[in-house]
Every structure is written in structure tokens, then in C-alpha cells.
């Protein structure tokens, strides 16, 4: 007895030509069966949805890069140790990582990069938040000194 596991391909549905006629098949317990019109339609809609999410991930990365380059430039132009008041958005990246895992999961390097990126962005945001908290304490302290 042989047991096979054939995973879903993220690029589905797949078209094949049978006697020059384009058809779509699906795998079932008994072998391959022709897909109905509605099944084909649903698979194309899912494909489009996944594709849009990949585009969104791409735009998030480009946007984060632009922001970080601006911050880096300001740091380089400032003679003293500088902090940025900007934090980077992480919720979208987190949610896309979960939603897109079935598609990008095979790209091991990309997954590793995105996980490392998530860690670095968290550290960057936490450093900014610590800086902002320190300013806030200092402002409160100065105000109390003035009025106290």
C-alpha cells in the first residue's frame, strides 16, 4: 500500500489541453476530475487575492526602505547621536506573513529575511519609543520644576 500526499500548488488552477480543448483538472481521492465552471472561477478569484497581497507586501517593503533611508540620511547629517521620532508599521507585515505563508513559504531565504526584518523593525520601534518616553519625562520634570 502506498500513501501519497500531493500539496495544493499556490499557482492553481492549472490549465491543460485535451484534444486542443483547454480544460482544468482537480485532484481527488479517486484520481483527477474535471473542475466545474464555479470551481475554476473560485480558484482564479483566490489566485488574484493572493497576488494582491504579495503586491501589498512588496509596497510595504519599498515604503519601509524609503523611510529608513530618509532617517539614515538625517542621522548621517547630524553630528550628535540622533534618534528618529518615526516608527515603522509592523501590523501589515505580520498579517501578510501569516496570509502569504502558503505562497512564499517555499522561498526559504525570503522567509528568513522577513523574520529578521520583523525583529530589526521591532528593535528600531522600541528604541524610538524609549527615546520619546525619555523626552516626555524630561518635559514633565521641567514643567514641575518651573511650577513647583
Amino acid at each position, binding site marked *: 500500500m502506498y500513501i501519497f500526499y500531493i500539496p495544493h500548488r499556490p499557482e492553481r488552477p492549472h490549465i491543460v489541453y485535451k484534444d486542443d480543448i483547454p480544460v482544468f483538472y482537480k485532484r481527488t481521492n479517486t484520481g483527477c476530475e474535471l473542475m466545474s465552471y464555479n470551481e475554476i472561477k473560485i480558484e482564479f478569484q483566490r489566485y488574484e487575492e493572493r*497576488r494582491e497581497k*504579495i*503586491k501589498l*507586501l*512588496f*509596497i*510595504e*517593503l*519599498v*515604503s*519601509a*526602505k*524609503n*523611510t*529608513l*533611508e*530618509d*532617517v*539614515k540620511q538625517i*542621522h548621517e547629517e547630524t553630528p550628535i*547621536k540622533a*534618534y528618529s521620532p*518615526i516608527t*515603522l*508599521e509592523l501590523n*501589515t507585515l505580520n498579517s501578510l506573513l501569516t496570509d502569504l505563508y502558503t505562497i512564499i513559504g517555499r*522561498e526559504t*531565504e*525570503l522567509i528568513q*529575511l*522577513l523574520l*529578521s*526584518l520583523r525583529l*530589526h*523593525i521591532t*528593535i*528600531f520601534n522600541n*528604541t524610538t519609543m524609549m527615546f520619546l518616553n525619555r523626552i516626555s519625562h524630561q518635559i514633565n520634570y521641567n514643567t514641575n520644576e518651573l511650577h513647583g
Partner: protein
Amino acid sequence: MINKNIIPAIDKSIKILEDKFNLKNPFENTPKSVQSHS
């Protein structure tokens, strides 16, 4: 402070997405001053 690995990691991720999923940077020909930030 920005970790020195963060921008190269983003660059590599962008490159992989461009190559594997045939995507193009929508801001490539846009002047930097009008690009959006998150």
C-alpha cells in the same frame, strides 16, 4: 538608531519578490519627495 543589516535585508526581499513574482517597484520613477511613507 538603524541596524546596518536592515536596509540590505529589505533590498534582498524586494529583489526576491521582483524575480519570483514578477513585480515592479511602483515608486521607481517617482521623485523621492512625493513617495509615501508608512
